[in-house]
């Protein structure tokens, strides 16, 4: 396969911009696509070329395989990078691109298909010797059979409705005496809720951690891993902070998890960047959970610690090049954390926020990488994911990173829309987080909106600013009396002149 010359990025927001940065570094042309709402989105401004998809919702735009294939053809692109989300894990998309003679920057469709189906993936992994979470491979109804299987799996187990999901229709069973009742109750509940009373058993992991391994494979059968990412800090199953390395993982565990992740990738003939997610119990036993067949949101923490550019490695794999790294070339150094910046109001149940970003001052300086999909003046719409940007902080030690992150948030200014920055400030003040000691339940158990601390100086500063502004320009202002309406625009015009004058007369 020839080297890529022009790549269409079938995504939006920070990930589209981030992919285009690598394209530009590799002298590959970048093509953006955009919905009607996104005419002025950051990725459109950043790209070399941009083509409209029409439509407002994702379903009308970024999820339309036909439109994207057509755009790639019209732009003369030779490949498409899907980012994450949207069509990134859709085998039909990969096949449509291949059919159109375009390269999909991602794994083979078959690998995506297997990993996209929990049952198929479980069977495949079991066959490949990958440790999956112990459980029954099908429905169980006979209580005696269930008791035998539960013994085999080991308590606690969880009884799950086969048709259930999202935390509904499941019961934790901590000993044999509770099993029969739980089977009966879950079955009845499932019958009512899903019109299917089938239930199955799975090992229940108390206070689990969510740790994932980055893998990278070429089309020649080589595969390596690039260490783990700790992703346990979640709010309702949504990751909010990730780090690399994990404070929970030592060298031996990393090696074992990495080996198993590579095994999983090889079992499905994987090519490109993928992530094998593990659920880890407090005793450090880990189980395959799923494989994400795309670049992860949190890939930057791996990049910072391993000195790699995962998008570059993806592009090389897609172009059929051999992996430029062997396993022994992968060396980690330092510590990195990613804080996801969402447009949402942590004081009101993390309600998604939308609107115009009136003011934006981003943290910079030593140890800060800000992968952003926003700019001052841009509109944040309600149509898409509320992820605005990712603040990636790195340093020599975890403690340095925590202090640096605090500093970064102390210089982060966003006005006009609500963000979860106050939430991150709360999190950084938690001793358990500082100690690296949070499982996946931590936030849901500990966070309450009233714990959010506004800047203690805010009321005083705001009072001073408002009183002075009103004194000078408001209704009662000596200078402005009788001209309140027209005053604003005149002041605006005079602002530059006056600012200059003030500077030379003050201070």
């Amino acid at each position, binding site marked *: 396969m020839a080297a890529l010359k022009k790549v269409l990025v079938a995504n939006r927001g920070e990930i589209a911009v981030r992919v285009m940065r690598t394209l530009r570094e590799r002298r590959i042309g970048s093509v953006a696509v955009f919905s009607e709402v996104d005419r002025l989105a950051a990725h459109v401004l950043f790209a070399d070329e941009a083509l409209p998809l029409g439509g407002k919702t994702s379903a009308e735009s970024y999820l339309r395989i036909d439109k994207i294939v057509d755009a790639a053809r019209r732009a003369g692109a030779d490949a498409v990078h899907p980012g994450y989300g949207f069509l990134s894990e859709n085998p039909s998309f990969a096949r449509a691109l291949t059919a159109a003679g375009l390269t999909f920057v991602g794994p083979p469709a078959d690998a995506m298909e297997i990993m996209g189906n929990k049952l198929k993936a479980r069977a495949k992994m079991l066959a490949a010797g990958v440790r999956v979470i112990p459980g029954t491979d099908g429905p169980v109804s006979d209580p005696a059979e269930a008791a035998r299987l539960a013994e085999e799996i080991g308590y606690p187990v969880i009884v799950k409705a086969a048709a259930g999901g999202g935390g509904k229709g499941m019961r934790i069973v901590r000993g044999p005496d509770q099993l029969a009742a739980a089977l009966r109750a879950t079955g009845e509940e499932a019958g009512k809720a899903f019109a299917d009373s089938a239930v199955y058993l799975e090992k229940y992991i108390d206070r689990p951690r969510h740790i994932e391994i980055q893998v990278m494979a070429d089309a020649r059968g080589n595969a390596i891993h690039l260490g783990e990412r700790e992703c346990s800090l979640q709010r309702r199953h949504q990751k909010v902070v990730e780090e690399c390395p994990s404070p929970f993982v030592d060298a031996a565990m990393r090696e074992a998890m990495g080996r198993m992740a590579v095994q999983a990738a090889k079992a499905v003939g994987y090519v490109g960047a993928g992530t094998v997610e593990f659920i880890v119990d407090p005793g450090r036993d880990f189980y395959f959970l799923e494989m994400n067949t795309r670049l992860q949101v949190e890939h930057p923490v791996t990049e910072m610690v391993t000195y790699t550019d995962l998008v570059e490695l993806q592009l090389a794999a897609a172009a059929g090049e051999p992996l430029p790294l062997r396993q022994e070339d992968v060396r980690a150094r330092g510590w990195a954390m990613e804080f996801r910046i969402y447009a949402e109001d942590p004081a009101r149940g993390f309600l998604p926020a939308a609107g115009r970003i*009136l003011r934006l001052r981003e943290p910079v300086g030593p140890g800060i990488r800000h992968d952003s999909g926003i700019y001052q003046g841009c509109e944040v719409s309600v149509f898409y994911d509320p992820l605005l940007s990712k603040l990636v902080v790195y340093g020599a030690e975890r403690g340095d990173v925590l202090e640096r992150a605090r500093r970064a948030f102390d210089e982060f200014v966003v006005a006009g829309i609500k963000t979860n920055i106050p939430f991150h400030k709360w999190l950084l003040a938690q001793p358990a987080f500082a100690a690296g000691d949070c499982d996946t339940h931590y936030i849901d158990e500990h966070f309450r909106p009233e714990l959010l601390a506004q800047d203690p100086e805010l009321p005083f500063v705001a009072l001073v600013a408002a009183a002075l502004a009103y004194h000078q320009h408001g209704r009662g202002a000596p200078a402005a009396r009788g001209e309140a309406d027209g005053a604003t625009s005149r002041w605006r015009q005079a602002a530059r002149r006056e600012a200059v004058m003030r500077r030379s007369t003050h201070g």
Partner: protein
Amino acid sequence: MSEGRYVVDIGGAKRRVAVAARGARWELVLDGETHLVEQAVLERDEVVHLLVDGRSYLVDLVEKDWKRGRFVINFFADQIEVRVRDELEAVAEEITGGRGGEESFELRAPMPGIVVRALAAPGETVARGQGLLVLEAMKMQNELASELDGVVQEILVEDGQMVDGGTVLARVARSEPPAGT
């Protein structure tokens, strides 16, 4: 030397401020404490830098309603609403019983917070400016006062309750001003 005296509503509290020019600086007297403020404008009506007693603050004026003296001020990732009135105007409001001819007063939470305790019970007669309840918000306890002379009709929240900004906390019905005022 322009001077002015204002009443500022912020975070559910009412503060009195006097502003006076002192050369190129401003003197603010806030609840008896004097602050020396130097103000510099980065973008007029939008961004202001303040040196308050030497401390450095960069402030964004996100919303401005010059006539009503209503502002939304952004400081880093936090915002707060501020209302500034001329003291004379505020006094006039006091004399007319606040909010002009309104017959009842709804006490609303000016921001999310926790109800610490009610200071008056339903049926109780309260004067304008008298505290109705204490709301803890932004780590500060704020006494929220009635804006009418009247009778407490309802206290709608309980001690310890978490409330959103805008939640109605209590209602006061106007009592007739004594004849002759």
